């Protein structure tokens, strides 16, 4: 049943992208393809959110900032003024750094609250996010920086080195994002259904006392969850920030966190494949709404001239519709 839903959604998405994406000149084609590729980043952050939610039943508002931090680490490692290291080394430094920060936060902040009410832990993740933003602003100032993508979009000769998809030039970075998301989705799904450690994490989230009784260390599970979440956030940051063109403090929280949350809710807050699908669907919906706001007219004026921010409005509409019509999400179970 659930796999049928997944297959249906994926097939419908591919169909829509083919129909709309390959269409006429003034059709929504570039928007849709870009939207789905953006959605891959949402899906990646949503995976981290779902992971923490499965493990601790709390929304992790610090998930976006793991990404911004990773982008800052990467920037300072590879920038010729500071580190001047090769790109892969920079990525390794960024991932390790964020992993260590995630572990430290788990040990110092989350661990003492292991039996605290969920509201407390939720507020704690908010404080963690804002603390990281504050440190970023103090340390790096609020000025925008430019982080180059993994594979330079412009080669030495000055030609744009992009891949053609449906008459649309796509940066290789976006395709890498889609690939990484798919890989992580499969990996985590396998981990939670087939390995002992994955099952132990799930057990902890359901009843931490009973888990302790059968000899599973709750602390170890908590450490594992936050380390993996930090890593997922870092990967999303490294993939996304080069695409926006500006690395500023809190960039991931401002641009990605909210669509990612909506994607996670749409997929069902506890479903990893749901997070994957939800993120991509959100990217698609945003793209269509952006196109519609520019193309459709009310009383001679485009919609975007009357009410700006159609992308954000679309997210709110999706969230409200999901919570009203199917609160458990597309693939989630009733809780």
């Amino acid at each position, binding site marked *: 049943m659930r796999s049928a839903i997944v297959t249906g959604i994926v097939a419908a998405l591919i169909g829509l992208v083919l129909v709309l994406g390959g269409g006429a000149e003034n059709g929504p084609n570039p928007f849709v393809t870009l939207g789905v590729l953006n959605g891959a980043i949402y899906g990646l952050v949503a995976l981290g959110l779902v992971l923490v939610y499965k493990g601790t039943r709390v929304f992790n508002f610090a998930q976006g900032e793991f990404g911004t931090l990773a982008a800052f680490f990467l920037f300072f490692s590879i920038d010729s003024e500071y580190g001047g290291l090769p790109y892969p080394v920079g990525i390794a430094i960024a991932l390790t750094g964020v992993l260590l920060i995630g572990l430290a936060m788990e040990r110092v902040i989350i661990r003492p609250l292991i039996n605290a009410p*969920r*509201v407390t832990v939720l*507020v704690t993740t908010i*404080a963690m996010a804002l603390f990281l933003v504050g440190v970023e602003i*103090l340390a790096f100032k609020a000025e925008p920086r430019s982080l180059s993508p993994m594979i330079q979009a412009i080669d030495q000769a000055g030609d744009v080195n992009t891949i053609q998809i449906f008459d649309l030039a796509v940066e290789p970075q976006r395709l890498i994002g889609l690939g990484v998301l798919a890989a992580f989705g499969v990996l985590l799904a396998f981990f939670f259904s087939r390995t002992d450690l994955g099952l132990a994490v799930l057990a902890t989230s359901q009843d931490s006392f009973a888990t302790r009784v059968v000899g599973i260390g709750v602390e170890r599970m908590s450490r594992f969850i936050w380390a993996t979440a930090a890593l997922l956030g870092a990967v999303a940051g490294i993939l996304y920030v080069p695409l926006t063109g500006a690395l500023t403090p809190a960039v991931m929280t401002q641009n990605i966190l909210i669509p990612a949350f909506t994607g996670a809710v749409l997929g069902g807050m506890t479903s990893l494949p749901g997070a994957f699908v939800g993120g991509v669907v959100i990217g698609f919906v945003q793209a269509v709404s952006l196109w519609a706001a520019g193309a459709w007219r009310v009383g001679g004026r485009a919609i975007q001239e009357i009410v700006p921010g159609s992308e*954000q409005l679309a997210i709110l509409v999706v969230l409200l519709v999901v*919570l009203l019509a199917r609160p458990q999400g597309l693939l989630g179970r009733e*809780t």
Partner: protein
Amino acid sequence: MTTATEVLSPADARTRPQPSTRGWIARIGVMILLAAIVLWRVATIEPFWADRFALAAIYGIIGLSLNVVLGYTGQVSLGHHAFVGLSAFLSAFFVTEKGQSFWIGLLLATLAGALSAGLLGLVALRIRGLYLSLITLTYGFVAVNSIFDIPALTRGGAGMPAPRPSGFATEHKFALLCFLFLGLVLWIDWRMMKTKVGRAVLAVKQSEAVAASYAVSVTGYKVLGFMVSGAFAGLAGSLFAHRATTVVSADFSFREALIWVLMVVVGGLGNRTGVVIASMFFALFPFLVGLVNPLEHFVIDTMGKDPEELTLVIGPALALLTIILYPGGVGEQISPITRWFRGEKFSLHPDGHKPKGKPHRAAAVLRHLVRRGR
């Protein structure tokens, strides 16, 4: 008549020795003296600080508004910048564009806040869990990127003028007005929690199942709580608009909403006095740095930082410390004083009064060592 939500007063309140008449006179006298000092300072201080105090009072109202959601209903709102901001724009809109009086603008802003919070709450309560935080988060996102950019309502980036009412045009008089409204909100909050509504809201927070089995409407009281919070936020928004006299959307960012949540945590969830004190501290902190000469020198010259940026680190750090080590917040720390005002004996460790949450880690280790030594 006995109703479902009627709770008998706790045993200690009936048997507790009450202060003598002179004791009550002393308590009321000190309270009046404190209020008089605050109002006198606000009325006589230089205009720059009167303006800052007005902001502090508005932050106090915002803190109390979030306290209703966080402390009483046990949910989290991350969209208070949207409630406050939308009400600020609406108030300015009605005064400037529609030619209404300040008081009409204030009333409509308050109603708008209550209505939007209630509607979002109704959707959020469809599913168990802390989904109000997600819905308000997204609503705030939409407000910042869409509603605050609607040219007809906000005049784009230039801002919407919001003139002060004629009787309260100076900084001092407007600050006094803000403090009067803070007092009003405090009084409403206090009375609400003393009556059936307050007991029902707290019962629902404690256990939804038990509350429901006593015929307390879980959804109804939660939505009511959100609406009260929205109304307070709307009132604060209107005051915010007319204090600044021009409303610009940059004043209401997501960061503000987070800071507001954290200041309530620092104040102590559900603790009126603590929340107001912490909120005022958060409002004044960037300016307090300027008061202490060596500190200002250190922050601006040595570190090369803006004190306002410092709030973003100090605030969350304070909140984290509060959550982990002192879950009761400011309210818990000042409880000997507030308990004295309520008619108990002044005592740092009143009988049967144990600090909330886990004991301090170091204290636990010490106790363990002492016990082993015996």
